[in-house]
């Protein structure tokens, strides 16, 4: 699969797909999308890159072991879920800011929860794929 077209396309596809995955993540509160799908898309971006340039090069882009994203994402989701507990609300209650942030929209705990899911999915998928391709 090491054709020049694929190789040069993958360089541009990586940032585009990552950007699109963030768009899907943010869109997911009311419309189809969300952390899980967004996370899968982001990992697909890295998978395409690794097909074109080899796993070693992709690992150099990621810099750290993708497995590290799992506890980070879980911690973020856990924090988002239990934040209402400190405000005297029940677990998992959505807390929202009064004023919408430009571009993103109204920010609430649901967004952080979804971001946590996003990170966990990227972490898990990349760990699986990197491990499998190491064994090949």
């Amino acid at each position, binding site marked *: 699969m090491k054709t020049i077209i694929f190789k040069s396309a993958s360089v541009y596809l990586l940032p585009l797909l990552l950007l699109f995955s963030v768009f899907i993540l943010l869109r997911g509160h009311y419309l189809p999308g969300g952390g899980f799908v967004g996370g899968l898309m982001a990992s697909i971006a890295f998978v395409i890159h690794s097909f074109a340039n080899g796993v070693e090069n992709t690992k150099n882009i990621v810099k750290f072991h993708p497995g590290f994203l*799992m506890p980070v994402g879980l911690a973020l989701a856990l924090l988002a879920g239990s934040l209402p507990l400190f405000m005297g609300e029940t677990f*998992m209650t959505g807390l929202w800011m009064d004023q919408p942030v430009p571009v993103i929209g109204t920010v609430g705990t649901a967004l952080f929860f979804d971001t946590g899911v996003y990170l966990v999915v990227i972490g898990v998928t990349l760990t699986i794929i990197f491990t499998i391709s190491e064994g090949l």
Partner: protein
Amino acid sequence: MSNPYIVLPVIFQLFVAVTLMFSWTNKNLQKLISVVGSLIALLISILLLLKVNQEGIQTMQAGGWIAPFGITFVADTLSALLVLLTAISGLAVSVFSVGSVRNARIRFGYFPILHLLIMGLSGAFLTGDIFNLYVWFEIIIISSFVLITIGGEKAQLEGAIKYVAMNLLASVVFLTAIAILYGLTGSLNMADLSLQVAKVENRGLVNVTAILFLVGFGIKSAVFPLYFWLPASYHTPPPAISAIFGGLLTKVGVYAMLRVFTLIFIPDTFLTAVITIMAMLTIFSGAVGALMQNNIRKVFSYLIICHIGFMLAGLGVYSTLALAGAVFYLVHDIVVKTNLFMISGLIFKFKGTYSMRLLGGFYKEQPLISLLIAISLFSLVGIPPLSGFWGKLLIIQGALDSANILLIGFIVLGSFLTLFIIARLWSEVFWKDPQELPKKEHIKYFNELKPLKKQAMLASVVFLSILSLGIGFGAEWVMRMAMHIAENLMDPSAYIQAVLGT
């Protein structure tokens, strides 16, 4: 009615798991976090039980969505008691793991997964929503898949395939049953379902759904025709993992049956007859299976099945007394079975084998540890006043009241066979003249371990042995609680009122 205490056992386990994942590379730190975390979890669950005892049933609506629309968490005495027992087993297994689990397994995330499993168990006991129960079951299954295969020995993988296949099948059946139930009633909240199912006119479909639930939970708790995956897989992973599996996993199925068949489906004579027959055959096949085995872990695996039969018998009789017996037996069984599998690990560390034929002379070599082991073995047989006796007594009393002589016959037969099996095990492993066993290279024997590891393994066995003694001698206190739970199970109006607030 916002009440953060209820989900705290669940959230805290997740917190411990996340902390453990952050310290992925440092195995000593992981051990410390796991033990300290389990201790704190034990404290939390004790507080929860005290609170439920004082103030009655506690509820929490996740996200503030009121029942029956949101997911409700309910802590009645049964749930809180089982969460406490989960925390106790979790602590014991965590300490035992410090001593016995190999570093290679810890490197692949043994401790985080253990805590995720305990989180799943606590969640399953606390949830008041049938679909959420399914989700917790999935969390339990997925964590247990990882635990059963971690290390990747050949025997482990072979056991894991059977375990995975049967449990996935059970999940499919369970999910189908939930789908039909939702189609019938349009609700998933268990308290609401209790009211809605009673109104459904198509009783035939309700009965079919009840049978589907019975099959799904039956596979998970290893009752008669569907038990064969358990003895094929429970003896393959390391003893610490077998301990938490043997102590808790099948018991979640029993808990789910107790909950579903007292709250949602009130069994008619047909259903109680089916459950009773299943109970009798479970007792019989478990006991006979245990008779045939030579590997001590396989003996204990079959005894799990046999004793699941006792709890099922309590449900089959369906009276306050018998249900109290089933709950009492559940409490006793969780503690003792966890302990027995840890004990089998301890014996292995001394001798390097699980085979009864090869083992021998354990009493002569280690008299004190043998006496310690005897406590658990005798509780298992149910010699009064040890813990196994009282639960069986209540179930038999309940069966006497409903004049179910055949069932009593099977329970007594099961008890005698258990006595025979344990007596044989005792004479083979502890009294028989020892034979010279070849030293195996890859096993670290007990006397080669560091003192801390030795103490950790012994401490967890001592802890659970003292506890099972305590259940036996403090039987009145446990019995009062079991009676209270059984009364609440027979009359779920308090549960329904606590959830729906009407």
